[in-house]
Structure formats: C-alpha cells, structure tokens
C-alpha cells in the first residue's frame, strides 16, 4: 500500500495524543501525587490537544475532495471511518471541560466525569482508527486482531513516554510510577510489534490462482493492459526491496523502543524529551512500514503470485 504521509502523521500524532490524555486522566483521578499539580496537567493536556487536533487536520490532507469531508459523520452504523470521525469530535467538549476545570482549579464530580469520558472517547477513537485497517479483508497484513492491539499498545506507549517527559520537565523530578509505566509499555509495544512481524511473515490467503479462477494450473501475467501506471499501480503496487524493509524494521525497533527504553532509565528531563522525540520518530517509521508491508489482493491481478 502506498504510505500517504498525512495518514502516517495523523495516526502517530493522534495516537500519542490519545494515549497521553488517557494515561494522564487515569493518573490524575487515581490520585497519583505527581499528577495533581495543575501546571503539569495543563501542559500534558494542551500537548495532547495539539497532537490530536494536528493529527486530525493532517488526516484531511489525504482527501482528494475535502469539501465533502463533513459528510463523513453520516454512516456511523456501518463505516469505521465514520465512527472514528464521530468519536473524535465527541471527545472535544469533554476534553475542553476537563482541562478548563483543571485550569480553574475545580475539583469534584465535573472533573471526574469529564475526565473519564475524555479517556473513554480517546481509546474508542483510537480503536476505530485501527478498525478502519483491521476490517479490510482485502489486505491480509491488516485484517487481524493484532492491528487494533498494536494501535492501542503503541498509542499508550508513546503517550506514556510523553507523559513522563512532560511531568519531569514541568514538575521537576520524574515520578517513579510514570517511569515504570513507560518502561513497561515500551516493552509491551515492542513485544506486540515483534509478534505482528512474525504473524505477517507466514504466507496465507488469496493467490493469483483464486484471483483468476484458474486453480489447477500455474498462472503468469503476460500484460497488465496499460503501458504507464494507473491509479491501481500507484495505490496498491507500492513495492519496497525486502532488504530495505528488514533494515527499516531494525532501525524502527531501535529508534521506537530500544533508545526510549535506555533513555527512560536515566530519568533526566533532557534525555526524556529526547526519548519522546525518538519514540515519535520511530513510530512514524513503524507506521510507514505498516503501509509499505501491506499487500492488497489487487496485486494478484497485476502478476504477484501471492500476497
């Protein structure tokens, strides 16, 4: 699949923003002492708000006809993309009430209810985003429950690293709980990703034989019917050398998981900021790989023997 840069930015940034606000709400409402300071909460909340909104705006850039984007709220009953749009917008009032209440030093039921709803809608939106991909039977590498697991694990992971960084920069000393949480989620994220890589490495699914209906003999493409590329070649024919993919996988595992893990052990504010930047950069490569390694069944008609 062709990796559209705007979609990579959208899923990584908004995923991290949703993870950040969710973990912050949980920490705040469960009474973690380092997450009671309103300056820490507001910094993390505003960072999350900017990342979510920036991501959502970026997602509209890949639309070829954005003037009809408002219609995307209309098919909630069937379309995961529509559900994502609805929950992404539903989140905003509760997030604004929650952050506004913190800003005005309010406590009590308003903060709790708005906070809990913010966290719930954040996770539901992230789940809907992942289901857009996981629901496509045409792409074997996406059509798996590992896709939502990865999206949620990596969103929470990047959110935890960001939360640790913001807390240590704004609040002074890094809270031990946040450090341990971030370390645990980095390990969890890495495990999920490695399991995914093993899973997609196993050949399965449709072949050129089932695609063409000739299941009792070998089939080879002689001619695709056009001399220059079509929309289908551009969108689905995206191919990267296998060697390059392996190198990028290793680079991604290093930048997204190993480097943040080591920097998190140090607990110094400056290094935590670098850890957060490294996580985001690594996840951008991870999302690029998620697209580049996905092979749509239309490729079978263009001569691939299997996907």
């Amino acid at each position, binding site marked *: *699949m062709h990796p559209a840069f705007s979609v990579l930015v959208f899923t990584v940034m908004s995923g991290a923003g949703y993870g950040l606000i969710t973990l912050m709400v949980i920490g705040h409402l469960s009474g973690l002492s380092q997450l009671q300071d309103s300056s820490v909460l507001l910094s993390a909340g505003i960072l999350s708000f900017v990342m979510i909104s920036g991501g959502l705006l970026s997602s509209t850039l*890949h*639309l*070829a*006809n*954005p*003037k*009809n*984007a408002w*219609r*995307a*709220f*209309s*098919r909630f009953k*069937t*379309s*995961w*993309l*529509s559900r994502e*749009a609805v929950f992404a917008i539903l989140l905003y009032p509760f997030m604004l009430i929650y952050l506004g209440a913190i800003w005005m030093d309010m406590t009590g039921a308003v903060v709790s209810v708005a906070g809990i709803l913010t966290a719930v809608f954040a996770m539901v939106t992230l789940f809907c985003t992942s289901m*857009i991909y996981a*629901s*496509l*039977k*045409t*792409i074997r590498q996406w059509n798996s429950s590992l896709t939502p697991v990865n999206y949620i694990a990596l969103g929470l992971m990047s959110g935890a690293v960001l939360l640790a960084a913001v807390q240590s920069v704004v609040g002074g000393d890094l809270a031990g709980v946040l450090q341990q949480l971030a370390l645990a989620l980095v390990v969890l994220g890495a495990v999920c990703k490695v399991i995914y890589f093993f899973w997609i490495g196993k050949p399965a699914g*449709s072949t050129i034989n*089932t*695609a*063409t*209906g*000739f299941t009792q*003999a*070998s*089939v*080879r*493409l*002689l*001619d*695709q*019917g*056009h001399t*220059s*590329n*079509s*929309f*289908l070649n*551009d*969108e*689905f024919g995206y191919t990267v050398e296998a060697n390059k993919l392996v190198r990028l996988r290793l680079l991604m595992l290093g930048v997204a998981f190993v480097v943040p893990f080591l920097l998190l052990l140090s607990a110094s504010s400056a290094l935590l900021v670098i850890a957060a930047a490294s996580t985001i950069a690594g996840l951008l490569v991870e999302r690029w790989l998620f697209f580049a390694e996905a092979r*749509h*069944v*239309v490729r*079978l*008609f*263009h001569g691939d023997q299997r996907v």
Partner: protein
Amino acid sequence: MKLGLVVDLDTCVGCHGCATACKQWNTSGTIGPLSDKDPYGRDPNGAWLNRIRTYEVDDSPNSKTVNMPMSCMHCDDAACVTVCPTGASYKRSEDGIVLVDQDKCMGCNLCSWACPYGARELDPDAGTMKKCTLCVDRIYDESLPEDERKPACVLTCPTKSRVFGDFDDPNSEVSQLVRDRAGKQLMPELGYNPVNTYLPPRNKPVVEQYQPSLKATVKGWVNKVISR
C-alpha cells in the same frame, strides 16, 4: 433483479474494445467526465472503469493465453459500500447496481482499498471515486431501441464475449451460460459474492490420432529395411 455481466474467457481476444467504448460512453454519462492526467504525454494516467489483463495459464506445451477483462462485479456483499463514511457509495436495492454519488464522495480512497477487484479508480481531476455503472443511464433509456438497452461494453464487444442480464432470473441468458459453462466467481474466498461471472475456456476437442494397422506397420518396416 440482480443485474450483471458474464464474461467468456474462451472467446475474449483482449482487444480493449470494451474499455474504450466504456470510457467513451461514461465520460459523458452520469458519473462523467472520466478525466486523464497527461493523456498525450510520457506518463498518461486516468480513470478507466474496465481493465483488461492477459495471463498465461499452465506451462508449455499446454499453456493458454487468457484475456481477462475486469470491471465492477456489483457484489452481493459489497464491502465498498459498508466502508464508505459519507454514504456516497450505495447499492441499489431494485437491481443490485453499485454506484457512487459524485456529489457526496470526499475522495478518501477507502472503498478502493475494500474492493478486491480493483474496480474503483480515483478521478485525478475531480478527486472523486469512479466506477462501472453498468451503464445505468443506458439500460433503462426507453428512447433507445430495445436491443440497444445494454451496457456499452456489451454492445461493442466484437466477439460477443460479454453478456448482460439478470442473474435472479433462472431462464435468462446469463443464468443459462453460468449453468452450462460452469461459470466462476473471482476470489470467492473473500466472501463478497461478486455477481459478474467468468466462463472458463472450453476444453479443446481431442484430435484423433491416426493409428496404422499391424499390417501397415510391418509393411512400412520391411520397406525401410529393404531400401537399405
């Protein structure tokens, strides 16, 4: 009604006539124009609703060249319709034709990702999704003579390899062809239940080999030996 096409892989010669007639009709039809980017340049790219691919099936000396024209299959279980967030993609309940409302499409490409047959192509100029309409603006046009109320690809096909009809009617030409020639769906394992059906190439009649009698064989051998 369940309208669709039967494509005969035995007789299709891969002339691209269907694709050209389709583009000509539909570029000024209900979903038109079907624009092209750089049409006369070095790297032309544009929206076509039919694609014809050529395959070699089996290995030499038993190999056969098969031309496979593909357009929208108007699936019974059309995932392109369910994934559409704007409601632009819809399947008509009266005849099963899958269409895109050009006024609602936002060009997110998700329907083209959901389609296993590559039937949907983004118009590079309009930014909306284009697909086969089964010439919905032609098959119901009562101002046309009745035998011309068929999709443009079917009318133009020089080898009559494309047949249009109602798959719900067991006595229609398409239903009979599917029965008689063991019509196949493409990629049935994905469960989209495509309506368009492909007729596999017929088995060639077996040519009888000349079997000389024992006497003739002996005579031939003797003649060979004597001439030496």
